[in-house]
């Protein structure tokens, strides 16, 4: 088990390094226009040279990257060029908000889709058709269109929830619900639709197993076999789906945070990239990559714990 974790952490580190290097390389490639775009059209050549020198943009790629890397391994992503606080500080402040959004959306989506997906797989008929249709809609319609629909109905026409803004749950829980309901609703709906469909598939596959019939011949009732054995065996695939959805949601949240003006990692990413702020973008890429790698590791460990065949590997 320890060996498994160590090996996975090793692969994760290599992957992280590759992603950071690639991202830095891309950013460095375009760095000759950065000074101009930050300092504006009035900046003199001397101003630009000073800016480039100050931020190490006049160094070679390797030198420049090494400078960033040696700090980054100590979780010091430097000072951004266009924000007052250090990158680490900003990320720490905004990460919480993003995680609240993602985890609550995913929790809601997971609970509802397990109920819907299992029912659809077991019952079939009209509920199955509805679930499949919803799955198609959720797959085809991106979360920001869902967000627009929610805003128009629940904020513009009926002023039930807020269309923009963010109140942290610690400050005022009622206001938090009003500000978080629509973004969470939009994120949850999209992933709900696809998780439901995949859980339906996992349960149907699990129902096909030979041992389902054999257990019934031992005198166990249908419900007992389904709820103890079929669902237990569908749990592994369902878990990997949740992991994938989490990673997918980290991408989707960028636009959602922008629509609802929520101060999370996503809106920070938009600000940082539109201002070509290399330290800020790099901090964000690194943190996102770490989250993705950690989530994947946790999912793998949980799946291993669920599956006796891998448990000891």
């Amino acid at each position, binding site marked *: 088990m320890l060996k498994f974790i160590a090996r996975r952490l090793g692969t994760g580190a290599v*992957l992280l390094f*590759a*992603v950071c290097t*690639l*991202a830095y390389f*891309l*950013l460095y*490639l*375009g*760095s000759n*226009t950065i000074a101009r775009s930050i300092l504006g059209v009035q900046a003199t050549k001397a101003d630009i040279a000073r800016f480039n020198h100050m931020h190490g943009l006049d160094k070679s790629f390797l030198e420049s990257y090494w400078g960033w890397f040696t700090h980054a391994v100590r979780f010091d992503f430097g000072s951004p060029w266009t924000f007052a606080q250090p990158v680490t500080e900003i990320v720490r402040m905004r990460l919480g908000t993003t995680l609240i959004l993602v985890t609550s959306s995913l929790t809601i989506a997971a609970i509802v889709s397990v109920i819907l997906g299992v029912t659809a797989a077991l019952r079939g008929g009209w509920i199955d058709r509805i679930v499949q249709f919803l799955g*198609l*809609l959720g797959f*085809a*319609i*991106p979360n*920001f*269109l869902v967000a*627009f*629909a929610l805003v*128009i109905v629940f904020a*513009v*026409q009926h002023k039930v929830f807020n*269309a923009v803004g963010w109140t942290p749950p610690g400050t005022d829980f009622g206001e938090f619900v009003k500000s978080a309901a629509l973004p969470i609703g939009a994120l949850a709906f999209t992933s709900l639709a696809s998780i439901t469909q995949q859980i339906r598939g996992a349960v149907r596959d699990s129902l096909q*197993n*030979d*041992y389902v019939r*054999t*257990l*019934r*011949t*031992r*005198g*166990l*009732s*249908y419900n007992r076999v389904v709820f103890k*054995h079929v669902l*237990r*065996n569908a749990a592994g695939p369902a878990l990997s789906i949740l992991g994938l959805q989490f990673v997918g949601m*980290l*991408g989707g949240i*960028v*636009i959602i945070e*922008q*629509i609802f003006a929520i101060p999370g990692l996503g809106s920070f*990413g*938009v600000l940082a*990239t539109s*201002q070509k702020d290399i330290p800020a*973008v790099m901090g*964000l*890429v690194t943190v*996102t*990559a770490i989250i*993705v*790698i950690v989530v994947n590791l946790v999912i793998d460990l949980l799946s291993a714990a*669920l*599956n*006796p*065949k891998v448990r000891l590997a």
Partner: protein
Amino acid sequence: MSTIETPRLALRDRNLALKLLTNPLGAFSTFMVTLFTFAAVFANQLAPYDPTKSDYTLMRATPSWQHLMGTDDLGRDIFSRMIFGARFTLTGALLAVSIAAVIGCTLGLLAGYFGGFLDTFGNWFSNILQALPGLIVLLAAASVLGNGLYLAMGIFGVLLAPAFYRLVYVTVRAVRNELYVDAARVSGLGDFKIITRHVLGVVRAPIIIQAGIIASIAIAIQAGLQFLGFGDVESISWGALLMDGYSKIWEQPIRLVWPAVGLALLMVSLVLFATILRDELERVGARVRKSTKKSLDEHVKERELAPAIVHPEPDRHGEELVKISKLEIGYLQVGGKYKVVVHDSNLSINKGEVVGLVGESGSGKTQTALALLGLLPAGGTILDGSITFDGIELKTLASKEYDKLRGARISYIPQEPMSNLDPSFTIGSQLVEPMRMVLGLGKEEARARAIDLLDKVGLPDPEKTYSSYPHEVSGGQAQRVLIAGALSCDPDLIIADEPTTALDVTIQAEILDVLREMQKATGVAILLVTHNFGVVADLCDRVAVMQYGRIVESGAIIDIFDHPQHPYTQELLGSILDENGPARGAYVAPAGK
């Protein structure tokens, strides 16, 4: 050479197009995609106004006959902007899909066909790209390479390439090892010819399906990026219209609705198109496979039904336990008709008897056994006749009552040992669970009984097996566990469905020994389903022979072996001399009498 079939999927393109159009949702999605494409191509002719021309006298107009969707802040016609927006949106999507398809398909084809270095490289490429958080990388790239949206779509195309790569790679790997590709190679076709002629034909349809889905994703990302402010502000696109509409969401929410609905319709149509195409392809494939097999109905019609041969059995003793009379089993077909798999079959089993049910695969043996257990697969029903167990009519038995019968009185040993144990639970817990439910035993009692049973079926270390998971034991051991499971609640009847077929020859003999010993010790009746007359000779008191869904001959084992009357029985008996294994030694015994 006629056995080498090429997949029919690719050859039926015209048929498929027809299927797509006769399906209402398929027709709808095809129509919508065509409509949007048409609008994009002929935007200049279709748009009633110049999309960039401002009319300051008509700003923020509500929808009317002059301006179907109203006008924006500068008095520009939104309907015309929607039409021109379709052009931009579709071009961007086309660009992303083309780049993704070209890179992904080429790498996938090469890596899948040639393997080796390309294989490693392709997987590495695909893994790296999948590990990157997509939108974030896109943002980073956009900040570096400038705001050009086509450029962003190009980069996105590279990011999406793995979707095509994986698909093509997997398909090509599968096709590569097909017989007809080997045949083509043997007959001297070069690699390039094989790829273009045979391999491309197979992957074409899946690529079209994937392209529909990828296009939908690309459109979403493109609109999202524009909404975030990337891309040329002046460009006319649905994403820009979204942004414009969102800024006026309080004053004129309708302006957000137009582009949102346009995007949603286009994306849903693309995905729908892909999904329906896939479903139809699968259906075509399934139909080809099914139609090659002659149905039992046809056999029934072809043969005149001579009455089944029943050998008189004056020496039979014991009470009657199971009586199957005039049994008919059918499966509901798409058209609402039943396909009959078992018909006109009679069989009886007395307490303590071992009865063999013999016949070739597809003759209806297993269906009869499952009907007795009340566990016919979905769609299967007993259409006619009756099955009684100890006087209880099973055909109409309520499912709760049936649950009380199974395990406690009728039990089952399956064919394939490994797949019939739940891989997620220990062998012990799977043995204990029914005993606690059916016999109401306590935890410790059930455990002790389970270990005792494991010992009795000849497992060398019952304690260890008890706490093992199914994957930790061998096939032969797993089959012993299943026999222990079948015996665990002291049933009156065990149905053993080909209990030795999936095992090695030496292990087959051991398992038959276990069955015989357990039967002697407990006096349980066994219905042994098998295609092997040798196994029957080894264990059974009586035998019934099944052919084309019907029991054609039955009687005491000696009578059947000495005086087989039905030609099919004679044929089966003749064939056992060719079979190897434990059957042969045992066969001598009844024949020698």
